[in-house]
């Protein structure tokens, strides 16, 4: 299914048999994360619709936010598109489309670096704002702090993999081709046959990034990150003025009121 022994000597892929730890990390953990993410979102939506918000702090401070927040979010959107392209589209497809390895590599690294740096710069500015602005800091919960820590780690690890690849390119070598390891593993998760060996063959930087990323997904339903799932994509397609009737039970006034003593 995947090249266990890379024929290309330039690739620094170490073919080793997956250990028990590998199986736990790349075979079991993804499903735990998936269960927590989906279950958590459903639970949060049912239990806590009221708490499902961006918890914006713009009212307190908007000068810094105006620069940092779009920088972070737009950077992140590009990063997400990059991840989708890199993880979901098999290498053979892009090659079939005539995109050579070098072209793809150049695109991914340049765009990835720019977007990654924007994202990191944005989040650093946002955290700095959060720490130094009194009102914003006092509106910060422990939950937020943990989330920021994992988020920044995920971004740093991701950027590290990109920069390592770019560095390898600049010194004339070849970076690790995640499209033959991480991407293969990622796609295999969804057909319920996790290719642990593929992921195990990846480098430490990628493994770290994936681990932190999975942790972040696990935190998603329980932090302010949930607001990402309510991105208002339907807004351009609805009429401007929304009308709603008073309640869902038009005969509510006729509903029999249960007496306290009726148990």
């Amino acid at each position: 299914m995947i090249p266990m022994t890379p024929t290309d000597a330039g690739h620094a892929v170490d073919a080793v048999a997956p250990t028990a730890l590998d199986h736990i990390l790349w075979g079991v953990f993804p499903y735990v994360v998936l269960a927590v993410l989906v279950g958590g979102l459903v639970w949060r939506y049912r239990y806590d619709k009221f708490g499902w918000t961006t918890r914006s702090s713009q009212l307190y401070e908007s000068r810094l936010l105006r620069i940092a927040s779009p920088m972070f979010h737009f950077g992140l959107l590009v990063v997400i598109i990059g991840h989708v392209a890199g993880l979901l589209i098999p290498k053979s497809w892009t090659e079939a489309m005539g995109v050579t390895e070098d072209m793809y590599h150049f695109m991914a690294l340049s765009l990835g670096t720019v977007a990654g740096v924007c994202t990191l710069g944005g989040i650093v500015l946002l955290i700095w704002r959060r720490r130094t602005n009194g009102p914003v800091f006092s509106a910060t919960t422990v939950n937020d702090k943990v989330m920021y820590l994992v988020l920044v780690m995920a971004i740093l690890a991701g950027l590290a993999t990109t920069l390592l690849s770019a560095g390898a390119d600049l010194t004339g070598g070849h970076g690790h081709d995640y499209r033959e390891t991480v991407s293969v593993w990622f796609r295999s998760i969804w057909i319920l046959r996790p290719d642990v060996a593929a992921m195990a063959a990846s480098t430490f930087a990628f493994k770290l990034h994936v681990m932190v990323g999975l942790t972040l997904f696990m935190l998603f339903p329980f932090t302010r990150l949930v607001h990402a799932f309510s991105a208002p994509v339907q807004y351009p397609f609805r009429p401007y003025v929304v009308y709603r009737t008073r309640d869902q039970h038009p005969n509510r006034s006729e509903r029999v009121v249960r007496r306290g003593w009726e148990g």
Partner: protein
Amino acid sequence: MATPSASGRRIGKVMAQVAMVMNLDKCIGCHTCSVTCKQAWTNRSGMEYVWFNNVETRPGQGYPRRYEDQEKWEGGWVRTPGGKLKLKAGGRLKKLATIFANPKMPAIQDYYEPWTYDYENLIKAPLSDDMPVARPRSLISGEPMNVTWSANWDDDLGGGEELGRQDPIVQKLGEQVRFSFEETFMFYLPRICEHCLNPSCVASCPSGAMYKRAEDGIVLVDQDKCRGWRMCVTGCPYKKVYFNHKTGKAEKCTLCYPRIEVGMPTVCSETCVGRLRYLGVILYDVDRVGEAATVEDEHDLYPAQLDVFLDPNDPEVQEAARRDGIPDRWIDSAKRSPVYALAKKYKVALPLHPEYRTMPMVWYIPPLSPVVDTLTKTGHDGEDAGNLFGAIDALRIPVEYLAELFTAGDTAPVDSVLRKLAAMRSYMRRINLGEERDESLAEAVGMSGTDIEDMYRLLAIAKYDERYVIPTAYGVDDADRGVIEEIGCSLDFEGGPGMGGMGGPVPFGEASGRPDAASVETFHALKTRQTSDGRSDLKGRVNLLNWDGNGKPDGLFPPSDNGAAPDEKEKP
């Protein structure tokens, strides 16, 4: 489907709206409406700066500061050269593109930074030569602060010319508006949400959480669907949608819908000492709203909106209303509506800033008092029709100012209203003095003596059940059977006090989980305060209006340096 009305125009879909009129001549600026509204709805943390109802002195900057400057805040709608309506702050795609940081949102300083006083210092300060003082502390950051602005900083023209000159309308009218004591004029403008027919806040909401209720036209925010994108704050040109900075959700005046539904007036109306508020149903043709909001000339917006209102006494209107599912008792109520009478029959009520093109539904009877005051100050008889008519013509500045507020700058309708009010004054004085009725006074303003007397009854006598004609949301029979009261027990929600619980700790901070109904929270805060000897547990909320300075509620002040909670140290 559409039936032609008496005027020959086809009646589209009929909808009902509970609307308000305020008679500004009777407003003494006592702020009772603001205070009772705040006590009922917004005395929660995160809402300290929120005034669903506020009373502004005009000329003045209003609340938030200079909210009428739409070149800056970009609220409301604009008409494109092509004759379409567009949100002034930009269309849907621009909204989505700027969703990560709203470029046109007022900061807390544009309202004011809420504060409290360090009262405890008054009794806990060590002995010294100086009198201890209660220093102001910010309710946002908890730090000591200097109070430099608040909701009514320029109340009663406080701050004089320096602040008054920053009123956007004064700036528009230029140097003609005088602020010297002898030459100035002043009146009060109470404001709530306009519950517009064409609400730009609703149109701005990316989540679709804001909506206009089909039954009564009340504009509400679904707290469970609001995601805190803050676009509604920008969209509303009246700046009457507020962002609760603790829960991260938008909140706004609800027209006290739980009261309206059972036929009671809003809290602000009920407690108004001047009895200047009127509540009633308006039937309108919803298919014509868009057309009326898009008329080219801003001066035509007021008559266009009047045209959208339907005459509830017209049998064809009644038929169309029944066709569209409006209950008969609502149609009957609309016939007796004081709002319809003042706005459309007598034409003495005017919309606030029709040029925002939102079709506002809280209307105002402009005050005659600046004119009367000037007359009496100069030694003239302020109730003589001739004097009054002359003065309305001569005193252009108050009239132009009022026109900027109510008719997009067109002085003719304001003139006409003031003349009617003046005619009523003179006509009724003759009756009071036992003189003969002078029909010519009424005719001079295009009314009849009977009309004048009816209007006088509505405006001056202002009986409770004539001021507030509100049909219940439920059947009248239901009300008689007491069913409404039973479903209305607001304490009986799941996990609520009526069900034996006060709600436990919640995992995502105080804003998460199912919220207490605001009235429940207030009820408990008050009850605890009134019935306990010790310090009451306000459930971690700082309720300023209930707080008598006793103890330090959690979250009011930052924790002390030695780490011990202040309360623990103080225990004997």
